[in-house]
């Protein structure tokens, strides 16, 4: 695959830094601007960029949908788990102060760090899931269309009618949705 060489190389360079920036926003969130929501979205954006450039199948191979769906639940469990831990340690639900037996402030730091990690995990996983779902849907639609003998993409389309062809494509995919 030689096409789109420039985006491919650029994405290769950028994606590690996007993921790293996501982790920075995640874990620096209690000292600077940031937190789980923003970090989750940034992290997911890295994965989505990868999927856009290298194709959905490739991305699904790297981060499988099954794994993502586990992460969705896991993030919520991390959040709620901290709450349950504080309950068991004798505090109220999500009273992080009890997490450290010596200094409540340390406990609060620890608590907010862990629950934000839970938030980040779920947000990233949900963003990726939504992308997989929508992109996967387009793929299914395209496969169905290319199976259709009347609609072979090989037939040359005059330029003047290309916009009409697009419109009819859109209609076809609409019809697919309805089915």
């Amino acid at each position, binding site marked *: 695959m030689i096409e789109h060489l420039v985006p491919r190389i650029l994405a290769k360079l950028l994606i590690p830094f996007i993921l790293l920036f996501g982790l920075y926003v995640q874990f620096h969130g209690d000292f600077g601007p940031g937190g789980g929501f923003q970090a989750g979205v940034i992290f997911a954006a890295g994965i989505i960029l990868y999927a856009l450039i290298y194709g959905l199948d490739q991305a699904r191979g790297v981060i499988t949908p099954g794994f993502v769906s586990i992460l*969705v639940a*896991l993030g919520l*469990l991390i959040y709620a788990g901290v709450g349950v831990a504080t*309950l068991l*340690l004798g505090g109220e639900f999500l009273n992080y102060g009890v997490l450290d037996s010596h200094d409540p402030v340390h406990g609060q730091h620890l608590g907010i760090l862990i629950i934000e990690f839970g938030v980040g995990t779920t947000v990233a996983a949900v963003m990726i899931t939504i992308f997989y779902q929508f992109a996967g849907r387009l793929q299914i639609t395209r496969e169905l269309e290319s199976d259709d003998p009347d609609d072979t993409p090989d037939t040359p389309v005059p330029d003047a009618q290309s916009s009409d062809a697009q419109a009819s494509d859109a209609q076809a995919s609409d019809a697919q949705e309805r089915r």
Partner: protein
Amino acid sequence: MSTATHAGFSLLANLPALQVVVPMVAAPICTFLRFRNGPWAFALLVSAAVFWIAVTLLQQVLTHGVISYEMGGWAPPIGIEYRIDEINAFVLLIVSGISLVALPYALRSVEREVPQDKHHLFYAAWLLCLCGMLGITITGDAFNIFVFLEISSLSTYMLIASGRDPRALTAAFQYLVLGTLGATFILIGVGLLYIMTGTLNIIDLADRLGPVSDTTSVRAAAAFLIVGIALKFALFPAHFWLPNGYAYSPSAVAVFLSATATKVSVYVLLRFEFTVFGGIEAFDDLHFARLLLPFAIAAFLVGSIAAIFQTDLKRLLAWSSIAQIGYMALGIGLGTPDGLTAGIVHMFNHALTKGALFMAAGAMFLSIGSTRITNLAGVGKTMPFTTLAFVLAGFSLIGVPTTSGFISKWYLVLAALQHGNAGYFLAGLVLFSSILAVIYIWRIVEVAYFREPAGGAVVKEAPLSMLLPLWALTLGCYFFGLETHYSVDIARQAAESLLGIAR
């Protein structure tokens, strides 16, 4: 490992948090259970635990008074407070109880109506929905109500759409649009109140609203809140999402939602109308509650008349629900202790009655494959136990004496009669609407008992796992029709505490 200020884990002290946290933690765990019937068994177990918590909380409230729980150890009004008094303890009991009864019923219904590979997600959504409704009910924080409302709404859309019927998708989408509109209105209302008072805690709101109450912002907030909540509980004319939502969702979902979702929204209305706006003098001459009356009357008349003309049993029951919501709104609209008692007790009685009726309809759907009324011919002979339960619960819907439906209507009529000539008119309308209920229940009885079954496929009686919950709710209708100590007394206490705060 405990600090000086916190003396170890106490189950009893943390019950208010656990009421919401248990289903919330259970939902993600449920998505990991992929083996057959695993998610169902787990959801049932969680539901039983949640019901036990609700019963214990109600007992505590009745003996020791209001319970306040500080989330995260932050004192109200800064932190989120979970505040349980008679009214929300009662609603918690209804919601968790219905979930516990509906889950055994759900096993066979969901097996048939939801694809096997989606079961873990279905029950996770069920638990999230339960978590959301319990959260709305238990919290004493206006913004927290909105958050839990979104949790329960989003999972409700998923539950409705989870069936095999493709029409369920449009029904869920319709509800999504209207539900989001309602939630947005509620958020705008809460936002306006926050701008005017700087607080989100409901008790604190009620205290601080006094000086700023005679402003356009607060009036607009009240209007946004009432319209938003009315959308959520499908008060006429904001009822369009309800018939399709209940008719095309899987039967177990219809049972669960019809018996709980609208009740929780009615509770939110009570909370805002009486606890927050109740004490405001500027609203006194507006006769705030009475604004509901015309809509309530229209709801039970239109609902009952529309129910008569339905061709599908589930849709018929859904339209009847719109009518019953009208009765609750009528009780609330009267604004007197008796009216409120009637409205609150009808929340409970209608949950039992409509739960039983939707269960019977779902059992018929399982055996016959359709709930079109013409296809139900002779069902009284082929499914005698299900049909008998349907008829008995139908009596409760009509309000025949000895049923719980009679108790609600009795108090409703009593409350109406205190209002002079207008009261006689209202009572007459309630009785007229009950006669309409006789007509639509009779339509089913006629088809079920006096028509010959269409030959062909052999129709079997519903399985025991559906009959037991069905009969439990049906007998419940009669138990609470004869023994009103629990339902009416708690409702009266709840009504008095709501109006007591207003005074």
